[in-house]
């Protein structure tokens, strides 16, 4: 994308006024998407953007500027703007990139097969098939929207420590949302498959199955009764239940919250913060999961980080800036939405390791409670630990059996308290993709766990 001598001159310019660290992050991204809605292919969209973000760190201060102009002139101008925060007057300084160990521009997909590209016609055929499958699921299915999106993202990172790294990331997603219409009004169902892959996603995923699941959620919920109000035991099915950990502790373990004392987990390393059944891992290297990459957006290789081991907090998640302050290495969690954004500490694929219990047995041993087959998302206040997560497909458990479906509702809890209430974890592990939003930036992440039980959570339904 940019020649090494140019990068070196731009980094030198960025440090002209002084500063401890300078970095160029360049990105070239192309997206294409197609939507089938109301039985019609309504819109095919393609987009391309490229640009670079340049930051200069001096003491506690970061200067940042970005430009869509990747010419040397454009980059030098951005470097000058970013350097305005440094006033110590460093004078001329030469920068040599690529000598740092671990440097190296990673190929399109490292040791993985090259991602394949499907034609627009191929994508449309998948959308049509999903639409037909959803509509065939039941006469009450009144509306279907199917979406396909794929992106290629090439990144290049060079910094004044001498690092030169790069990555090429292909991501593809397919989603189906259905509306079912019945006597009680409308209900919705939604399913998505998303991987760090090209068109070969569809070797692994059946769009008919995805559409059938989305339609069946909407159809099932037509008979749903209002969710209970108050505290009950909750069994979370494997997969989307991982959102619980993302919210209940994942965000609270991000070092930017820790260094500002804005997390309930500050100062708790080495302490028991969860049930001994909890071993929580954040791992950016897992297969082709949605949160997987080879190097993060600061050029650090993705790695596996154990955050909680048998209930004991072992570490936080780190990016370059926060790690540098602590005199340690980044954990490969510096990510950004685009070249227009500063990197932040972000999760990758965050999951609970499987346990030894049997999933069916966990339900059978629950007298009365709620079985959550699918969670839709959540939100947390890292300072207080209070968090919510929304159930989009749930059932009552009565006498150890899954019975009636429930309408959508949020569940609410406090992270440190909830993590101690996990009393069973099964073996049926699976992962689910999601989009994580923080401070205005969205990045793809994965969540995962096996079926597990919480002894009590407050359910925010309307039934008294």
């Amino acid at each position, binding site marked *: 994308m940019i020649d090494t001598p140019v990068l070196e001159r731009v980094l030198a310019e960025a440090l002209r006024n002084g500063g401890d660290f300078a970095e160029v992050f360049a990105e070239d991204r192309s997206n294409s998407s197609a939507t089938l809605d*109301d*039985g*019609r292919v*309504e*819109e095919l*969209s*393609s987009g*391309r*953007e*490229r*640009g670079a973000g340049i930051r200069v760190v001096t003491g*506690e*201060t970061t200067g*940042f*500027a*970005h*430009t*869509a102009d990747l010419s040397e002139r454009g980059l030098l101008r951005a470097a000058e*703007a970013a350097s*305005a*925060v440094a006033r110590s007057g460093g004078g001329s300084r030469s920068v040599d990139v690529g000598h740092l160990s671990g440097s190296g521009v990673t190929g399109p997909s490292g040791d993985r097969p090259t991602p394949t590209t499907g034609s*627009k*016609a191929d994508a*449309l055929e998948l959308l049509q098939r999903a639409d037909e499958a959803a509509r065939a699921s039941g006469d009450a299915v*009144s*509306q279907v929207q199917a979406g396909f999106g794929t992106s290629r993202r090439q990144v290049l990172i060079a910094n004044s420590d001498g690092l030169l790294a790069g990555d090429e990331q292909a991501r593809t997603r397919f989603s189906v949302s259905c*509306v079912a*219409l019945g006597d009680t*009004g*409308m209900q919705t169902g939604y399913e998505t498959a998303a991987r760090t892959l090209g068109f070969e996603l569809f070797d692994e995923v059946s769009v008919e199955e995805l559409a059938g699941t989305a339609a069946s959620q909407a159809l099932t*919920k037509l008979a749903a009764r209002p*969710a209970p*109000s*108050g*505290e009950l035991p909750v069994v979370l099915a494997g997969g989307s239940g991982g959102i619980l950990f993302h919210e209940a502790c994942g965000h609270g373990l991000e070092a930017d919250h820790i260094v*500002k*004392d*804005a997390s*309930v987990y500050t100062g708790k390393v080495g302490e028991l913060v969860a049930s001994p059944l909890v071993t929580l891992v954040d791992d950016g290297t897992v297969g082709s999961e949605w949160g997987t990459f080879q190097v993060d957006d600061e050029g650090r290789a993705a790695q596996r980080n154990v955050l909680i081991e048998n209930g004991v907090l072992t570490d936080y998640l780190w990016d370059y800036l926060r790690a540098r302050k602590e005199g340690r290495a980044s954990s490969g969690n510096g990510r950004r939405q685009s070249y227009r954004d500063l990197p932040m500490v972000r999760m990758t694929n965050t999951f609970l390791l499987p346990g030894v219990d049997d999933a069916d047995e966990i339900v059978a041993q629950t007298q009365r409670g709620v079985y959550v087959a699918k969670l839709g*998302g959540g*939100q*947390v*206040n890292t*300072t*207080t630990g*209070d968090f*919510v997560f*929304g159930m989009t497909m749930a059932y009552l458990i009565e006498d150890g059996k899954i019975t009636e479906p429930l*309408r*959508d*509702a*949020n*569940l*609410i809890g406090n992270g440190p308290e909830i993590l101690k209430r996990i009393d069973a974890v099964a073996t049926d592990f699976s992962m689910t993709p999601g989009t994580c939003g923080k401070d205005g930036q969205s990045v793809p992440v994965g969540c995962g766990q096996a079926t597990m039980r919480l002894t009590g959570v*407050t359910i*925010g*339904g*309307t*039934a*008294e």
Partner: protein
Amino acid sequence: MSTATEETQGTTTDLLELAERVAGWAGTGEEVEVYVARGTETEVRAYDGEVESLTSATSAGIGVRVIVEHRLGFAWAGSLDESVLGETLEEARDNARFATPDDHVRLAGPDGVGAVPVDLWDEGLAAVPTERKVALALDLEARARAADARIRQVSSADYGDGASESALVSTTGIRSSSRKTSGFLSVGVIAGEGDASQTGGGYSVGRGFDGLDPDRACQDAVTRAVRLLGATKGPSGRSTVVFDRRMATTLLSIVSSALSGEAVEKGRSFFAGRIGEQVGHPGLTLVDDPTDPRAYGAAAYDAEGLACRRNVLIESGILQGFLYDTVSGSRAGVASTGSAVRGGYAGTPSPGCRALTLAPGPEGYDEDGVLGAVGEGLFVQSMTGVHSGVNPISGDFSVGAEGLMIRDGRLAEPVREITVASTLQRMLLSLVAVGADVEWLPSIAAGQTLAIGDMQVSGV
């Protein structure tokens, strides 16, 4: 040609010319719409008496829609370089080949409605030196730290401003441009007492630098955090819930998605087929009026270049109509209501609100007035999980909440870790009071204190 030409502002002339030039490349039998935009931004974050980050940025891009034989294609690029303009048009053209032919797919054409000029441009902003912006962010942070002995951390203190310009030209006779500036201060604080911590956020927004009020932002943040100290999990039960002004904008924004003509036409709105029916309490009148210059979302033109206008959606509880862009209007057999919105050059237009307000109740209540009228209930100052627990298609509503109990018409002890639930349909019918304390917050809806009856609170 649309009436837009006369309103063209000096600095956007080159953008209009650029859009016009690209639209001029339309082939025979093609309709082309070109949207071009550019902007500059500055953001300063202060922390612990120092600048944590200073960001300066410029961006520009183009979005092109092409219709050939009733098929629509779209493409965008994050650049206005000469080399990408033709490529983007070509890509949109190629995308159009794959769409399903649809007679309703069309571009907007001039509809004879004159635009109400709104001045959204602060000439002074460009001349404000970065040093003053930095000083304001540092001042904001320092004030927040000093505001109350119980403030133990200022987690964020930000100054931000932006200036953006855009132009829209189509082969169907649209030629419009707009520009606006904005400035904001935003602060997040953590209050502590013993082991307990609570958070609060506050802000101040304007069209530029002058008039931003750090004191107001701090007071708002500090009050919110401090009054929650000592909060416990509240009691369960049926309750009247008072939503503060900021939360009310969130509620109205949610309701607005069900008032989109596109959602209605596609069977994704609980309002579908109910025009003329009683969908709300007789005291509920809801209007979207982007021509009100006080509104944060005020605009002269919509995202298809038609004049923005006042649209009455619900009057005295009776559903009056929906918001349409050109395509959804065509499907419904009505004209566009000038309500197209788009998320910048990378997005395509769809109908949406810009400036929703509720008609205030006859009592002219402020927040205290609403609390007094309610007597007993729950006051909500923050909500979480709106995206995970509210379904604007089914109407199911369940959110996490923090706030204070209302006793004897006044705010009493703080509560946290509770949920508030109902359905949107029932909430509209259960309106208890609408405050006259209208505040234009950075949202598509105004803030005004709202009381809604018969909600289920889940706590202890």
